[in-house]
């Protein structure tokens, strides 16, 4: 938990995708993922189409492929689970190399891997090309209730506070000769979690008072929103529209 991990997925850049307004990217992401998830598992060509769209966007975004792929590793636990499906699934069996596996499970595994990976890829691309304050501004522009956006902004501020207190607690424990040996060694863990909460809260309270002293009145001053032009909407929604067309074709054919 390094201090800056709230921006762990962000890749600084000035590509056309970085420059698109966050609100447009959020709507575009939702459209793309909806299309992917609504595609029947059997339509392999449609999934190749989505992969091409994602790859074109990745190239446009100038985010290095290696950076993208390592961030996509969040998907790995699901892939491990998906690989189990052919073996635990029910129904008729098919031969796959030396194993007889469940046909339904095999399809389920493919379905889960393809959809989860493509959707996570699209989300990683959003996070890589959009700064957190811009995501928050985009959400509030999309009429997400102000209370939710305010809680989210405080959460992101306080993540660093919690991480900092956590680091200091660890150092203090190590300095007194404590070495965590087991996951079942719950008592120090539980007690320090409680202490961590109190310490973070009291620091957080001071941060809040400092904000009040500097004129915070419950509103975030993000500056005037530049209006989103029609061509920006079109550019941002284009991948989603193409994906939706592919999805409709795959359902009709």
């Amino acid at each position, binding site marked *: 938990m390094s201090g800056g991990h*709230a921006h762990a997925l962000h890749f600084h850049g000035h590509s056309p995708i970085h420059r698109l307004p966050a609100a447009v990217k959020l709507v575009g992401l939702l459209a793309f993922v909806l299309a992917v998830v609504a595609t029947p598992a059997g339509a392999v060509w449609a999934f190749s189409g989505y992969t091409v769209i994602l790859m074109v966007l990745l190239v446009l975004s100038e985010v290095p492929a290696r950076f993208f792929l390592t961030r996509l590793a969040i998907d790995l636990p699901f892939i491990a689970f998906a690989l189990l499906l052919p073996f635990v699934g029910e129904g008729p069996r098919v031969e796959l190399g030396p194993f007889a596996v469940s046909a339904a499970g095999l399809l389920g595994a493919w379905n*889960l891997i393809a959809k989860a990976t493509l959707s996570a890829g699209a989300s990683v691309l959003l996070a890589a090309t959009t700064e957190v304050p811009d995501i928050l501004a985009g959400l509030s522009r999309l009429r997400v209730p102000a*209370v*939710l956006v*305010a809680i989210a902004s405080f959460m992101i501020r306080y993540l660093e506070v919690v991480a900092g207190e956590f680091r200091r607690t660890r150092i203090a424990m190590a300095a007194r000769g404590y070495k965590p040996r087991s996951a079942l060694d719950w008592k120090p863990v539980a007690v320090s979690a409680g202490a961590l909460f109190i310490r973070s809260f009291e620091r957080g309270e001071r941060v809040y008072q400092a904000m009040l002293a500097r004129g915070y009145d419950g509103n975030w001053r993000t500056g005037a929103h530049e209006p989103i032009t029609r061509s920006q909407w079109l550019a941002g929604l284009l991948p989603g529209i193409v994906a939706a067309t592919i999805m409709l074709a795959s359902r009709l054919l």
Partner: protein
Amino acid sequence: MHVPDGFINVATAAGAGVVAVSGLGASLRRTGRDLSERQIPFAGLTAAFIFAVQMLNFPVAAGTSGHLLGGSLAAILLGPWLGALAVAVVVFMQALMFADGGIVALGLNVLNMALVTALVGWGVFRSVMRVLPRRSSAVMIASMLAGATSVVASSLSFVFQYAIGGEGGAPLQSVFQAMVGVHSLIGIGEGVITAVAVGAVLAVRPDLVKGVSDLQLPRLATAPSRKSILAFVTGGLAIALALVFLVAPLASGAPDGLERVAIDNGFIESAQEHPLGGPLADYSVSGIENEQTGAVLAGAIGVGATFVAGLIAATILRRRRSA
């Protein structure tokens, strides 16, 4: 516990989205009435804490991934409505910033991890507090039970969604066993952490614990004793097993229900009732008691196996750490 995209079909995810949005709307309305400006930063801090706690993440065999949830902690500190909002924010930001949990599946995840945990946790906490004498040890017990129950309720909510629109191809029975079994164990950890965190706040800043704001508690600065936590772990295991005995027969009805839908569309309504447990009486009358015993046995074995698996994993972790 974060459901990825593609695991549950779009129709079910959309349905869950509608439920989640109306739940959040209701929460917003309820908090709007008595929200002081100081509470929003506190909600943000609670959200940040839960965010950190949820990063202790490990995969679960036939479900998605398992970790502490934190919904009942948020509810006890902030009240059920603001608590649900705080955890919902965590789920949103995880999906947008870390690609953890799907985008279309947001409704499912908000429902399971924010609304169900906060409301169930709050309900259990308040009911237990009503029964027990008003001492701070009672707050510990109530928090433990609230934490444990909320996690199991959350996993049940997922199994319910899987029964309606699961696309994995894994049999419902094994999804049920893995999810509820593993989450009964996670629930023990969740209960301990919830109780300790609430205890710590109660000892230093009792004014910040919404769940006891209207109860006159004598001030007492204690974390739960070793004895009470040991009793809780034993009790938790017993409850996990008891849950399997009570709930597994209900789940065994569900695949039957789904199969029946496939054969005869006329039965859709009755099939949807099964996971809720309504027609249990009908089932025992129609005489599939053998099947139920089988399911109970399987469930008990499931919980036992996950407990052993957890112990083995912990031992391996310990070896690796000390090496």
